[in-house]
Structures are given as structure tokens and as C-alpha cells.
């Protein structure tokens, strides 16, 4: 028996970065807002307090802060003719759970995509001709340009307190920053973090080869900081427990450190935890949403929450799942190419080379999630796609992001993975290895998509979402290109040996080893309702009072970590809602 609660102006699904940002921005309009979070409430103290959070087994291995597959998962297959099976043990990616969402357990690497990435299809058309695009590649322009988003990148970076070194301020190239970045209107709010030895060695080698190293932009505060909401960060102490952990030190940019206590002061904002939204409810004419139905865990009942606006601010995969379950946008069909919801799921193509130096002490217990020096000399804007035979690019980086004592140990291949041989290997190699990584783009393809699984259901009886995804030759060529560049650099660094790990020809997607939690697409933005699920303001084309935040809007994946773009899009959409939608609710395009 469903309960019906009093109407709200806005219901927000999920209280992570985008839910918190939209809550803050829309609360300023005086709207009555309810955010529904399916996980627990989380605060730095007691949930991430020292020393309990620095527990590698509990958080790093047993995934304390992540979703439990028994409560929420999806099925996965690699090709259209495979039968998808449930993702029963977290591996390849780790969707977050609870207040703060992925903003709690991320590393803090906060990037602006390159200008060319927002207009990728047009960029190719103009510079190389559309015929270089492989037949099954379905890349699109975003429908919004870097120049339009610049003020919102700036806003997010100042809210999140990002530490970095500008490379291009209003067209002026700044020494020490990334000379290939699109122009920014001002510097980062905080100076860059200091560097670990591996980053410095890499930067020197790269500089000697004529490349342009710069510090990775970090959501790890280099100094005490107060953001425009009055929220505060303390300086990062390089404890090394960043990704998979909440920050014990108030140093990592997160909804907790940057938004939530300011938001909780708003009398017109409320939030409920342990409240999982099951579907968005639609009006009889299916042109608008009327609210959401959620499962109230503490009351043990379904609740209908009426609302004039619905903001989907869950993890990208869950936004798409809710749209598929609720009939928002026509589901995508890979055979006909028709439909939009679920289209263009993409991932991230990464690889790395580990270098061994018996005579160096890297002190790997010292690390920060966004520590590192980067080169963008092989970024999307720098690659001649026609010449190199692939579309895409990578940033190349070295730094210690993880100081966890067990997961952080690298040993040469051939070292036993358990027992006395492993212990001997640890003694010999702990502190003597560093790595150089490639963090690369992943294009979107006709048969990489999300839909509802025909077989498996979740605990609420809803069909699980099905992911169909595999690696493609274009992206494998890209990562192999990066391998060559990285090994050239590694070869100059005097390592005793090195070993590389990159996807090679014929590689199939393997869900078991952790790769990255950068699952994008499925509810892509654009300017044509036939090709995209939401318009350039993140508004559902066919339900004008539904807005969909998050990386599900990316038409293909960028070469960077997604959070910077996710934050900028949230502020961009919030601005459109505040200035254009609220005065006259309607389809904005």
C-alpha cells in the first residue's frame, strides 16, 4: 500500500555532487525541495573519522562505501549475441552509495575536457572529414561548447576548491601549466599540491623530451580554503587513503566538505536517506512527470512523492535505469539505431607502465588522490586522427595516488602472488616501483548501450538494466599508441626494468579487475531529439519537467576523469532552470 506525501516543488533523486549542487542552487529560488538518497547518511565524523577509515580491508577490499550488488546491480554482456549475466561481485567499476555518492570515494582528479571534445564530430568533419569515423562509431557533439560552459567550470572549481596550475588564462599561456588546455577565465582557487618523487622524475624526463608537464588538477586541498558557500577544506596531508575512502582530513572536495552543511541550513530543503527511488511517475499525457515513487526502507513501504520538477541526480547508470523503467525517452534499439535512452554507453581506455628502480625510495605510503604530473602532448587536440588511424587521445601521468600498504605494492612479473615468495618480493620491491599511466578517451558505438534485461529482476521486482559493452579496435589503437609514447619516456629514465599493461588487439571487456568508475552515456545530451535523450540544458526532450544530471549526458567519453564536466554541467543546467525554465516551465528547446 503506497503512501502519498505532501507535494514538493522539486524532488531530487540522489544526494551526491549534482544533487547537492542542484539543491543549493534551486533552494536559492525559494522552492520547496526534497532530496531522496537510497543509501545512508554520511559525515566526516564519525563516518570517515581517523583512524577507522584508514582500513584497507574494510574499505579498499570489502567496499564498505559502495553499493551492495544484492541491493542494486546490472547485467553485463560484451556482444549482442551474448546472454548478459548479473554483476554479482564488484570489479570493473564501483558505483557509490549514500549521501555524498561517488563524491565521497573518488580521488579528486578534476578536469575540464578539451574544447575539441565538446564538438568532436564537428571537429573531425572540419579537420579530417567524416569518412574517417568507423561505420559503427556513433560519436556526437554535446550541443554545448566549451566557451558556453567556461563560467560553470569556473564555478565548480571554486566551489570544490581545486588545487592546480593554470596553463592558459584568457589565451595567455602560463609557464608550468597545461599549454594545451582551453582558455580559462582565471587561475585555480588553490596552488598545486607538492609532488612525490615519481611525479618529479617523470616530469623531468618528459621535459627533457620536449613535452610540457604540469601538475594534475586536484580536489585535494593544498591549503586551507573557504568556498563561495562558506564551506571549508583543510590542507591534504598525503595520507594515501583517498580513492575508495572518505577523507578523514576535510581535504578532499566532496559534497560533505563543499556543499552539504550550507545546504542543510536552507529551511526549504529536506533530504531523506534509505529512500530508493523506484520510478518516475508520469502524467496521463506522458508529457510531464508528476513525481517519483520510492521505497521508504524505514517504513517498509512505497511512497508516492508528488513534485512539479524531478531532477535525476543519481549515478549515471542509475539515471539511465530510472529513465528506462519510467518511459522517459524512447529506448534505444541497436539494430535499427532508433531510440535514444540507453544509447552511447562508453567507458574509459586506460593503460600503464610500471618501472622498477632498486636504488630509489619512492615512499609510497605518501600519496594523494590527485597527486601527479601530467603531459597533454598526446591529447585529443594534439592527435592527427587521420594520420594515426584512431580517434581519441590520452593524458599521460605519473604520481602516487594510493598509499595503501597492500593494494599499492607493485612487483615485477613472475613474483609469486602469495606465500613466502610474495613476502620476499614485497620486502625486495616495496618502495622501489613507480608507474606512468595513460588515461584515455573511449568512443561510443552502435552496439555499446544500456537497456532493460529480459531475465533478471531486482529486489523490488524491477528488471535490472543490461549493459552491452566491448572494447573496439579504434580505442585499442589509441591505447597502443600511448604505450609507445610512454615506453619511449620510460626508456630514458634509467629503470632496471619495466612492464606494461595496455589493452591489445582482440581484447574483450573483463568485468573482474578494477578499471575505472567512469561509466558515461546512456542519456546523452544534444540538440536533436532523434539523436539524444536530453537537450543541451539536460532537460528530457519528451518530459520537460525532468532534468538529468551526471556523466550519463556525455555522448562519448572524454580523455579525462569526468567529475569536472559533471560539475560544470550541473551548474549550467541549474542556471538554465533558474533563469529560463522556472519563469516559464516548458521545453527549453
Amino acid at each position, binding site marked *: 500500500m503506497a503512501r502519498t506525501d505532501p507535494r514538493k516543488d522539486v524532488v531530487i533523486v540522489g544526494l551526491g555532487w549534482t544533487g547537492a549542487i542542484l539543491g543549493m542552487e534551486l533552494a536559492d529560488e525559494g522552492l520547496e525541495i526534497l532530496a531522496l538518497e537510497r543509501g545512508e547518511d554520511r*559525515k*566526516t*565524523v*564519525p563516518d570517515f*573519522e*581517523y*583512524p577507522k577509515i584508514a582500513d584497507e580491508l574494510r574499505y579498499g577490499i570489502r567496499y564498505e562505501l559502495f553499493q551492495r550488488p544484492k541491493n542494486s546491480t546490472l547485467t553485463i554482456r560484451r556482444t549482442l549475441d551474448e546472454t548478459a549475466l548479473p554483476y554479482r561481485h564488484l570489479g570493473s567499476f564501483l558505483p557509490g552509495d549514500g549521501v555524498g555518492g561517488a563524491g565521497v570515494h573518488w580521488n579528486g582528479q578534476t578536469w575540464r575536457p578539451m574544447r575539441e571534445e565538446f564538438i568532436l564530430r564537428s571537429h573531425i568533419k572540419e579537420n579530417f572529414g567524416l569518412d574517417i569515423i568507423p561505420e559503427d562509431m556513433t560519436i556526437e557533439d554535446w550541443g554545448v561548447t566549451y566557451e558556453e560552459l567556461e563560467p560553470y567550470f569556473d564555478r565548480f572549481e571554486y566551489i570544490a576548491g581545486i588545487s592546480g596550475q593554470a596553463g592558459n588564462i584568457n589565451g595567455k599561456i602560463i609557464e608550468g601549466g597545461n599549454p594545451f588546455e582551453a582558455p580559462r577565465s582565471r587561475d585555480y582557487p588553490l*596552488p598545486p*599540491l*607538492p609532488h612525490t618523487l615519481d611525479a618529479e622524475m617523470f616530469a623531468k624526463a618528459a621535459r627533457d623530451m620536449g613535452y610540457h608537464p604540469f601538475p594534475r588538477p586536484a580536489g585535494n*586541498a*593544498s*591549503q*586551507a580554503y*573557504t568556498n563561495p*558557500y*562558506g*564551506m*571549508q*577544506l*583543510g*590542507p*591534504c*596531508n*598525503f*595520507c594515501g587513503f583517498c580513492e575508495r575512502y572518505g577523507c*578523514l*582530513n*576535510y*581535504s578532499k572536495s566532496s559534497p560533505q*566538505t563543499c556543499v552539504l*552543511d*550550507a545546504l*542543510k*541550513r536552507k529551511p526549504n530543503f529536506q533530504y531523506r536517506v534509505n529512500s530508493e527511488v523506484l520510478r518516475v511517475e508520469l502524467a496521463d499525457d506522458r508529457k510531464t512527470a508528476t513525481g517519483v515513487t520510492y521505497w521508504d526502507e524505514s517504513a517498509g513501504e512505497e511512497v508516492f512523492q508528488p513534485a512539479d520538477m524531478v531532477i535525476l541526480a543519481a549515478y549515471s547508470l542509475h539515471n539511465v535505469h530510472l529513465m528506462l523503467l519510467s518511459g522517459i525517452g524512447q529506448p534505444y534499439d541497436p539494430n535499427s539505431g532508433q531510440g535514444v535512452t540507453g544509447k552511447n554507453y562508453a567507458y574509459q581506455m586506460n593503460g600503464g607502465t610500471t618501472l622498477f628502480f632498486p636504488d630509489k625510495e619512492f615512499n609510497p605510503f605518501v600519496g594523494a588522490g590527485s597527486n601527479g604530473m601530467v603531459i597533454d602532448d598526446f591529447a585529443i587536440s594534439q592527435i592527427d586522427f587521420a594520420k594515426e588511424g584512431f580517434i581519441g587521445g590520452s593524458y599521460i601521468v605519473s604520481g602516487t595516488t594510493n598509499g595503501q600498504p597492500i593494494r599499492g605494492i607493485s612487483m615485477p612479473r613472475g613474483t609469486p602472488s602469495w606465500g613466502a615468495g610474495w613476502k620476499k618480493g614485497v620486502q625486495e620491491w616495496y618502495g622501489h616501483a613507480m608507474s606512468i599511466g595513460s588515461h584515455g578517451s573511449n568512443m561510443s558505438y552502435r552496439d555499446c548501450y544500456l537497456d532493460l534485461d529480459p531475465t533478471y529482476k531486482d529486489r523490488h521486482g524491477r528488471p535490472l538494466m543490461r549493459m552491452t559493452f566491448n572494447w573496439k579496435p579504434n580505442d585499442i589503437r589509441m591505447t597502443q599508441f600511448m604505450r609507445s609514447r610512454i615506453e619511449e619516456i620510460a626508456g630514458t629514465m634509467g629503470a632496471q626494468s619495466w612492464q606494461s599493461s595496455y589493452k591489445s588487439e582482440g581484447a574483450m571487456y573483463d568485468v573482474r579487475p578494477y578499471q575505472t568508475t567512469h561509466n558515461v552515456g546512456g542519456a546523452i545530451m544534444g540538440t536533436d531529439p532523434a539523436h539524444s535523450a536530453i537537450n543541451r540544458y539536460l532537460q528530457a526532450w519528451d518530459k520537460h519537467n525532468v532534468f538529468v544530471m551526471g556523466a550519463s549526458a556525455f555522448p562519448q567519453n572524454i580523455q579525462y576523469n569526468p567529475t569536472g564536466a559533471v560539475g560544470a554541467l550541473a551548474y549550467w543546467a541549474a542556471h538554465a532552470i533558474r533563469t529560463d525554465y522556472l519563469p516559464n516551465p516548458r521545453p527549453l528547446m
Partner: protein
Amino acid sequence: MRTFLKILAALVVVGVIALLAFIFVPVQTTGPKTALAADYQVPDGAGAYAMRLADCAACHTAEGGKPFAGGRPIESPFGIIYSSNITPDNETGIGSYTLDEFRAALYDGIRKDGAHLYPAMPYANYRKLSEEDVRALYHYFHDELKPVNNQVTETKLDFPFNQRWGIRAWNWVALPDAQFVPPFQDDQLNRGAYLVQGPGHCGACHSPRNDLFAQAGYTAADDAFLTGGEIAGWSAPNLRSGASAPQSWDAEQLALFLATGRNAHQAVTGEMTLVVEDSLQYFTDDDMAAVVAYLRRIGTNGPAPESSAPASSGDKSPAGTPTPATSENDTSKLLASADPGMALGPRLYLDNCNACHFNDGKGASEVFPPLDGNSLVNSQNATGLISVILNGAELPSTAKRPYRLRMPGFADRLSDDEVAALATFVRQGWSNNAGAVTADSVSALRKQGGEQAAEQSGGR
């Protein structure tokens, strides 16, 4: 002999009559000190603002209770006093109070029924309230606020403190004259003096008490005024000495601390947390500037210099910047050495405190308070420091700094001996120079702390 007995009997009779009169003849209450126009109207918002200035909420709202419905236990040296319900409920609150009766409670500590209030109610300070503010408060509590029916726990002190009539005698000797007297030729300083002496009742905690437990001075003309007191076992710091916050911080930092409970030098703890949360954060910028100007003016050694030394905090250094190894910072060098053979105190600091407060003890501006030179750390009475180590501390949420930054407690991680060693190290590290802490004093506070922590985690 008979004559003597007659005289004696007469004296006894007179004495008894005098005593009965002392107990039962109603006290003459103080009337308005300024005659306001007959048609005087309390301006919009003035009631709520006066309530904030006078910080009525801190005492008259119980943990988890309805605002101003009373029942909050106030610790006093004589026992626990429960604050009263000051909502306009006729039965359990002040609904039936006339303006004169309300003023009598504020000025004279006299209840409607004629009984004396315990001086936990700072009527000795509220006697300085302007008639405008009295009217504003009456309007707020009598006419704006919704009544809440809440019978508060009756205060039951031991004899002789349960004889409320005795307070009459105390009032004779302890109370200053009613009405605020502007001491300066400057409007801002006078406004600051009024706010500090009157509604802000800062002296109630920050001034020492004399032998009669009366506040030792109500204006800066008294040398003892605001030179430090004690509340619930914690030190309320001196506000006038050369090393005091108003004298050693610049005006901006002082205002930031008062409005947000945090600045480059300190983070608010103890009872002052409620003062920031319920009262000071609501001060207008002009009123805050007036308070700051006044506090900086009344230093024991004269006014504070216009620009104080820059913030001592290391907030401008990037994380990981090594502390310069000079002979002045032996403590920093010891900690940075990470020598496994170091004594228990510094080792515990390294393992538990260094991550935020750093080996230079300077923390990070507004987020992690510096421990070097910190008044709580160096207080003669270590209760506050020990309590913070055991139970942690949480900053209040304020308009300018909403974050409830919270330090975790270490009660479940450190033994009494360890807390004592750690506290002693912190009190004697860097430039600090305070007395050692014993395990016994930790043990006593640990017993109290369990209850407080349970209350805190309930939140407000």
C-alpha cells in the same frame, strides 16, 4: 536583669519581624529607565534581534527541546538549575506576565510570583538593557512567539541554597545599578560597551567571581571585568590581558571568530559554541564591529594596537612544506624525526594529532586550530583540553561558515595515562608552557564525558 531581658526580648521580636519582612515583604522592582513615547511601537524584527543579542536560546532551549520552552540543566557551583519556559504559555510559561513583571525578571531577577530567580539568569547584566530592548524582548516572547506548554523540572538545590529569599541579600551586595551608562564619546564604542555589558552578558562567564560569587565588575572601570572566569569547569578566557584574543588578534580575525567560531588562531569549544551558534552569528556587521572595537579598546594595558601581528597560523604554506629547522622549534624537529624512540607524549601526537594540527602545531586557518599558543591548550585549568581530546568538538553552523567541522573524540582509543601524556606534551610543546596533566584528572572527566558525548551525538 528584667530590663535587660525585656530589651533582649524586644530585640528578638524586632529581629524576627525584620527577618519575616525580609522574607515576605515584596521587593521593590525597578521601573523603566527611559520613558518611551506612549505610542511607542517595537520595530519589525527588533524583537527577534534583541532575543539574539541577549542569547536567550542558549539557556532557555533544552537539548532536543522546543525553542525557549526551558528545562535546560545549567550547572552551577550550588547544583543544577533548570531554565524556565519563557514562551507565552499561561500555565507553564510567561503568558500572564505584564511588561512590568517581565522587566522585573530581567532587571531584578524577580518572578511574577515575587520569588527570586537564581542568578544563573544574568539579570545583573540585563539590568543594563535599554527600555527599547526590554520592550523588544517582551514583544518577542509575549506576542510573537507561539506558546509551548512545557512544565520544566523544578530546580532543587540543597539547603541553604534552596531558600530563595536569601538571594535578596545577595542582590543588595552583588547587583550594579540598573541602566547602562555610556562610557565613551564615541557611538560605536558605546554601542559595543552596551552589547558586551548588557544583552551579551559576556561578563557572566568571562569575569571572575568574588567571594560572594558575584561577578567581579560590570564595566571596564573594574579591573577584574572580563579578565577570565570559569564555566562548567572550563576556563572562560581573559579578554583584556596583553595575550588575550581581543588584544593579540586583529579586528577582522576577532570578528570572524565571534561570527563563525573559527579563525586563524582558534576554534570555539565548550559553552561558547552555543553563544556563537545562537547569538553572535546573528549580530549585524555594525554591531559586531562595535563589539570588536570595544573589546579591543578595554585592554588591561590600554587599547589594542591598530594592526596586530599577522596570523601565526601556517595557512599560507602548501601542505607538506617542511617546517624550517630552527632552534626555536625543537618540538617540530622532534616530531618530524619520527624517531621510534621518542617519548609517549610526542609519539601519541604524531599518531593521532599531527595529520591535522601538523608538526609545527599551527594547524590550518579556520579549519584546524593551531595548538601552539592556543588559549584552551594553555589554560591553567586543563579541563577543556582534556575534554576535547576525549570527546572531540564540533564547530557550530553559522551563516558565514556553515560547516560543522568536527574533531573526533579519542576516548575509545587512548587510556587515561595516554591522554595525560598527550595533553602534557601539547601543553609544553612549541612555545606552550602550561602545567602537566595527571591521569586522575583525565579519569574524572572521562566519566562525565560519556554522558556529554551521548548528548552531543543527538545534536540540536
